[in-house]
């Protein structure tokens, strides 16, 4: 029988999705349902003195108006419960404090959407506005207003790394590069805005139908806020229209359940695109102050980083993202002397939270820019410098633990370099082939491209190339209890006629369920069509953890293999049906030491390197990526077509973040809540050529040798593009996004100089 793993088996949901039959939460209707309008504060920082909902309650069609006083335990949060479910008086003292424009203050439940929206306009709120802090640096000032009363310095979380001796290391360095880098927020822009339903079942339990990333975590948080046992809640995920981390923190789960519970009626809501963009978290903006030193021989001897991220008004996953950025900002390099201070700071901006890469894109932008600049300062080839410093098996991470075995940063970088025109010379050193545009000639613009006459192109274009490499943790890190459930049931008599495989990892669009099926098919030695997946709701089996951290196929793969092996054993013992539930626990990780950062932070890592070619329009500042080679070591491609889809999707998302997407807030208010002014790339804005390259070097810890890979191709794109821009123009762009105005201004400054 043909192996399922490694084949491009069609996705299990492909026909339904292509035919428009797949049901997303917004497509579902329940008999007797009511519509719920979630009312945002609309003010970024204020105290709510009073909330008068009498007129709204009396409005036509209104069944209920719920406020903070109606929430049994008015707090929630994925990491810490620091956010009120509903802001306003009548519950905890801190709940009357609005810290973000999209803090939810009331739920209007009515017979129709129009009635709910009309009634929402009748709510009267007595606010005392408070000073608005939008700059994380200003938030650190001693006299800055507090966002949370228990955090007097507005520092939500901090980490540090101390390794080696910085003073002597910098004294040893022949070149030192110092820069400040700024990265910006990014909107997830998933296809389906937030939508969901909730109802009280015949058995008295509350069922929530929603698109999320982790059913059991949603269930736990709903139960906590409602003051109910978890068993009282059922969470069901139908089709999910993309997530990218944007559904990791909750938006509608609790309030839907609350409204259904309080009214006894089915409740539905769908957010508009604008509500979605205003109402959920974004990729954290970061500021990095970097000072790195290297010797003439090409050894990076010291790296000092000061890191600040903008957490917005609440924790969300800010401490975890900061924890990732803490090591990401040093790149995949073995640097003997390291000093990092990292803080995530409260403001009244939109909260920062999970987004594909989880601090990796931001951290690596700083790290890889530093490496490219060091190479330029040393007159070294950027690939050669990287390979002289890159992490290899046996090397120490900045946290002074040995990098998990199977480190392939060098292999991915070498493959990207080869495809970008680099060669290894007889002495083993890497350099770019002579016929290709030379990195070494990047001191100024490609003058020959400057044309003013009527030629065919009519544009003055400078072209350049750049390269970058990254690593990213797979799985929950820093001591978080990582585990994944799966269950396998085998039916038949003499032979297995059908297998039921249960695993609750969310298929957010990445194709996880198809990968589950393929892994199960091979583990059971059954054709995929004889396997039924059960993946829909929390009653089926235990937690599979989140569809995040590039973990799901890795963890679920182990769990499914374990359950399959157990069920087959039962089958051999003549059990009919044969059943096994298996919980996979990877090796444990540890939290950073608060003084030194010493830790074994992550289960394992995935690796990606990218080579970019760009064309910079010298008249308009428009940057076009003409070719992007993305080399990903995935260990084992369970479904190569799905892996390529992930790589190409990440390229689009990363190019958007680097060049186009510009989330603007002023005074704590979102000015770009529309897809007409928050510009995500269209198909023509993505690189002319994307080359997804899959390496299959097994991870010793991975099931079938596979590695997580969903986030990695998002990470090196920005520094590869920025390096290519420098190669083309001689200009370092240290701040994202590189929109035409920013590039044009830099070109003007260069011309002025």
């Amino acid at each position, binding site marked *: 029988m043909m192996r399922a793993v490694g084949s491009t088996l069609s996705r299990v949901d492909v026909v339904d999705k292509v035919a428009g039959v797949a049901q997303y939460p917004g497509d579902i209707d329940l008999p007797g349902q009511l519509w719920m309008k979630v009312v945002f504060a609309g003010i970024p920082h204020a105290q709510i003195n009073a909330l008068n909902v009498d007129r709204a309650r009396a409005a036509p069609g209104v069944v209920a108006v719920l406020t903070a006083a109606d929430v049994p335990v008015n707090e929630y949060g994925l990491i810490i419960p620091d956010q009120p479910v509903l802001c306003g008086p009548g519950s905890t003292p801190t709940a009357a404090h609005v810290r973000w424009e999209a803090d939810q203050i009331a739920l209007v439940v009515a017979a129709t959407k129009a009635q709910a929206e009309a009634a929402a306009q009748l709510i009267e709120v007595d606010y005392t506005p408070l000073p608005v802090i939008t700059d994380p640096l200003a938030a650190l000032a001693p006299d800055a207003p507090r966002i949370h009363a228990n955090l007097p310095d507005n520092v939500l979380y901090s980490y540090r790394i101390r390794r080696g001796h910085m003073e002597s290391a910098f004294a040893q360095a022949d070149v030192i590069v110092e820069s400040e880098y700024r990265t910006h927020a990014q909107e997830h822009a998933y296809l389906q805005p937030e939508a969901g339903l909730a109802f009280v079942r015949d058995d008295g339990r509350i069922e929530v139908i929603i698109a999320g990333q982790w059913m059991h975590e949603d269930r736990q948080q709903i139960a906590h806020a409602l003051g109910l046992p978890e068993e009282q809640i059922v969470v069901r995920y139908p089709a999910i229209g993309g997530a990218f981390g944007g559904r990791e923190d909750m938006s509608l789960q609790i309030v839907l359940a609350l409204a259904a519970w309080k009214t006894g009626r089915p409740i539905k809501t769908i957010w508009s695109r604008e509500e979605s963009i205003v109402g959920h978290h974004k990729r954290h903006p970061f500021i990095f102050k970097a000072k790195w030193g290297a010797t003439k021989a090409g050894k990076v001897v010291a790296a000092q980083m000061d890191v600040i991220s903008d957490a917005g008004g609440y924790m969300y996953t800010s401490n975890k993202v900061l924890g990732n950025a803490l090591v990401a900002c040093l790149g995949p390099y073995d640097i003997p002397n390291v000093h990092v201070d990292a803080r995530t700071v409260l403001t009244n901006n939109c909260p920062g939270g999970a987004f594909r890469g989880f601090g990796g894109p931001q951290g690596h932008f700083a790290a890889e820019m530093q490496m490219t600049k060091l190479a330029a300062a040393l007159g070294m080839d950027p690939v050669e410098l990287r390979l002289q410093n890159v992490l290899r098996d046996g090397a120490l991470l900045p946290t002074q633990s040995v990098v998990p075995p199977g480190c392939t940063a060098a292999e991915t970088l070498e493959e990207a370099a080869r495809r970008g025109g680099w060669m290894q010379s007889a002495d083993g050193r890497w350099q770019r082939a002579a016929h290709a545009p030379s990195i070494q000639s990047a001191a100024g613009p490609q003058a020959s491209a400057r044309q*003013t006459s009527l030629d065919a192109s009519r544009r003055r274009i400078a072209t350049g190339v750049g390269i970058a490499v990254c690593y990213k943790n797979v799985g929950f890190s820093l001591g978080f209890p990582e585990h994944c459930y799966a269950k396998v049931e085998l039916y038949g008599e003499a032979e297995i006629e059908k297998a039921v495989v249960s695993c609750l990892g969310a298929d957010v669009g990445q194709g996880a369920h198809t990968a589950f099926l393929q892994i199960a098919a091979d583990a059971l030695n059954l054709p995929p069509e004889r396997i039924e997946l059960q993946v829909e709701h929390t009653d089926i089996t235990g937690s599979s953890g989140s569809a995040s951290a590039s973990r799901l196929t890795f963890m679920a793969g182990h769990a499914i293999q374990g359950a399959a092996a157990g069920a087959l054993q039962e089958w051999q013992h003549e059990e009919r049906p044969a059943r096994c539930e298996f919980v996979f626990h990877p090796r444990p990780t540890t939290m950073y030491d608060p003084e030194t950062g010493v830790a074994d932070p992550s289960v394992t890592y995935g690796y990606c390197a990218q080579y970019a070619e760009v064309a910079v329009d010298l008249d308009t500042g428009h940057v076009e990526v003409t070719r992007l080679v993305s080399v990903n070591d995935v260990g084992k491609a369970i479904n190569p077509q799905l892996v390529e889809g992930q790589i190409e999707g990440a390229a689009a998302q990363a190019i958007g973040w680097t060049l186009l997407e510009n989330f603007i807030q002023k005074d704590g208010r979102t*000015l770009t809540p529309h897809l*007409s*002014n928050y*510009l995500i790339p269209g198909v023509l804005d993505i690189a002319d050529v994307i080359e997804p390259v899959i390496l299959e070097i097994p991870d010793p810890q991975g099931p079938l040798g596979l590695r997580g890979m969903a986030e990695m191709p998002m990470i090196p794109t920005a520094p590869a593009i920025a390096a290519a821009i420098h190669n083309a123009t001689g200009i370092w762009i240290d701040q994202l996004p590189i*929109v035409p*105005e920013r590039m044009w201004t830099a070109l003007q400054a260069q011309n002025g100089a």
Partner: protein
Amino acid sequence: MLTIITKPEEVQNTAGEIRAGGTDLHDRYHLGVSAGPIVDIYKLKSFNDGELGAITQAADDSTHIGALATIDQVARDPIVTQHYAGLAKAAAGLATPQIRSAASMGGALLQRTRCWFFRHPHYVCYKKGGDGCFARARHNPNGVIFDAGGCVYPHPSTLGMALLAYEAEVEVYGQGRRPIVALYGDGSDPTRDHLLAPNELLTYVHLPPPVANERTAYFRAIGRFEAEWPIVECMVRLVVEEGAITFARVGAGGVAAVPLRLANVEAELVGQPATQATIERASTVAAAGANPLPHTAPKVDFLVGALLHTLEQALD
């Protein structure tokens, strides 16, 4: 409240904001920027045997575009593509296929500003009864480079700009025709996007007879490949006879509170040889009088570059 009218005269007795294709008004309504009531005029499409939704050519070769003709119609209509090719190119280049299929010619001319602050329910600016422009002080990289002192957001109508270059007239029900420039004025009133009163109904756009042998070009400088409001846009009509430019009409958008016709550029072109030197010199004239905002300085260069590019296309 929604009122649907079936005859043009009914608009005079009906209070509310007029909705045709609804692509702008519905968006504002949905955002809480417009509270209605709404006067829906879509059924006027059947008025006068469908004239308000049609594009027709008169005996004198002038062309009449009904205000309810869609932008997609304008982009594809054989009369327009053959005789007013620049207008067709401009229509085909704006928005998205879905918007072009729903949005009307009249709505394209009378749409409200796309300013982010105007379209945010919190900010009460000149155009919402306030006494200031928030974009001026806060965030204005999309703003004007010809600053009239009031609203700093550029007028959004690509078709308004194109029709200026075609010296079109617009007809208002019960009032006859007026030059399209009179629809917008000079942009000095920051409270207005156009000068029609609430009960005035734009019914037709009239294009003069086509100019023989004209060459046209339209160029839209945007940050992504399509579906974006222009940073700068230009429309050019030229006639070249025996190597010399004998006729020039030039429009520019994205740079001022109203669509602009660049008469100074036209003057630099007419009577001059159709050479690269001529169009480069004429393009620089476009920036004369520019007084950009702190964040809009790049747009001065963009205007000159975009105009040069458009002129090059027209001469090609």
